[in-house]
């Protein structure tokens, strides 16, 4: 399910150009500072680049309202997994040190434009945003707390899929999260899923596609199988915009592509329409 490892490696930047950002969609160069100043959006092609979970939370939650929950829930190395490049435990501990996060989704209660909500934001920098047991557990707990407190649920996904280092139990998180989301929706609570770049594999094939509405940002990559896997299976080249946000909207799987600057207001507006 984790067929998107290639996307985890940033485009090759020669050391002399370490101060330059390259847009992965249109390959245009700009100073890193300019990229950041433009909220990680490409000024040339409007590709909405990846944000750290905390950056996203700051843009979506009303100021001072975000209260993190379930931070004690982290990864599990129940398989004592190691491969040719080393131990899972070593890699994930390095990720924790680098990102300051303990799992690939950050969860908390907050208000969005004055509407109370349970907000989850995935961080692609944490093991490619992969779905581990801790990720699934945080999401399931969030659904349960949202039901108890009658909070709408909003999740921003960014993930290459299930975390294979946690084996079958990572696959089981797809079922666990989908069940928890299903129970939440059955109780008349809304789930808004925001699929950001990239949302693929076991995450798109579970909670991320189960929103009462599924929305995304311009040019985000969204799909199930990887482009290379598909091309090798069907022996055909795929169109360049295959699995883009625009392609999915055209095929009926995305309710709306929303610009980053409008996301918060859009979510608040929908919650308002639905009486929350």
């Amino acid at each position: 399910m984790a067929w998107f490892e290639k996307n985890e490696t940033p485009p090759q930047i020669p050391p002399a150009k370490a101060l330059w950002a390259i847009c992965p969609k249109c390959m245009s160069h700009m100073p890193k500072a300019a990229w950041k100043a433009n909220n990680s959006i490409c000024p040339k092609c409007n590709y909405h680049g990846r944000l750290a979970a905390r950056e996203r939370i700051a843009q979506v939650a009303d100021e001072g309202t975000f209260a993190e929950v379930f931070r004690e829930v982290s990864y599990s190395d129940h398989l004592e997994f190691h491969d040719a490049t080393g131990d899972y435990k070593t890699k994930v501990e390095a990720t924790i040190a680098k990102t300051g996060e303990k799992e690939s989704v950050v969860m908390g209660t907050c208000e969005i434009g004055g509407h109370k909500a349970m907000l989850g934001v995935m961080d692609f920098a944490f093991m490619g945003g992969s779905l581990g047991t801790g990720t699934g557990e945080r999401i399931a707990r969030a659904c349960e707390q949202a039901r108890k407190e009658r909070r709408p649920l909003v999740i921003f996904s960014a993930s290459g899929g299930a975390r294979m280092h946690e084996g079958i139990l990572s696959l089981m998180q797809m079922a666990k999260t989908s069940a928890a989301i299903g129970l939440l929706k059955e109780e008349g609570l809304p789930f808004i899923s925001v699929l950001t770049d990239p949302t693929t594999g076991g995450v798109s094939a579970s909670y991320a596609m189960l929103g009462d509405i599924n929305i995304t940002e311009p040019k985000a990559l969204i799909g199930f199988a990887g482009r290379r896997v598909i091309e090798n299976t069907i022996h055909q080249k795929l169109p360049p915009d295959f699995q883009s946000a625009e392609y999915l909207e055209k095929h009926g799987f995305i309710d709306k592509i929303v610009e980053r600057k409008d996301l918060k207001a859009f979510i608040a507006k929908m919650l308002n329409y639905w009486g929350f």
Partner: protein
Amino acid sequence: MATKKKQTPAAKTVKTPSAMDRVKLARDAKRPHIGDFINYVLDDFEELHGDRLVNDDRGLVGGFGTLAGRHVLVLGHNKGETVEENMASNFGMANPDGYRKAMRLAKLAEKFHCPVVTFVDTPGAYPGREAEERGQAEAIAKSLEVFALLKTPVVVVITGEGGSGGALAIAVGDKVLMMENAVYSVISPEGCAGILWRDGAKAPEAAEALKITAPDLKRLGAIDEIIPEPAGGAQKNKKAACLAVKKAVAAALDELDAIPCDALVEKRYAKLRSLGNFY
């Protein structure tokens, strides 16, 4: 934990097949497939076709039948027995249409309080252009939600290859049984080796590390019961293998009979909830 994993060779009296040995057995073309299960496990069967939207996927088949005197819905991946069938069904790699057909029939079974029995045997969901355009991810996701909340008993049998999300889409149930030499994994050993070992030939190492055999999965709580196979594997005696499956499924259905449907969904959720909760 680290010490427990080490087994001294002297302690082994019978040679246990390696994870990769089981992968080969699980993929053996002579292993019982959905047609054999319908033939030997059911007394009668009527296949029903189509997702009511675009297609009748051959990679996943379904229909109603009788199992040990009980009326059930049967769903299963279909690898096909002939080259033509293999092609038509993509070797059991279902399209979104297949999962949507499964959901449609599952809701029908729920309506009439028929238990559902699923036979899982797929390398994975089909990675194709149309599959993506018709929402492979959405179809699998929705299937997980539908089966988790289905108000009728669901018995799952992993019979061969349990290939990641494409398998899981019809493998959420009240009892998950697994044939002795079947495998069930988040990613194929070859796929995992290609990514984490940068070498597809390291699949045996990946298979070992991923813990994909029935005994390992039972230890992890991902499955409930192991169904024994004839000596040497199910392909040595299909009929005996299928009859062992029939016995195990009938016993599971008997056990689930006593539970009211609302309690069933609650219990199913509680079980999913316990998977990978280490905190």
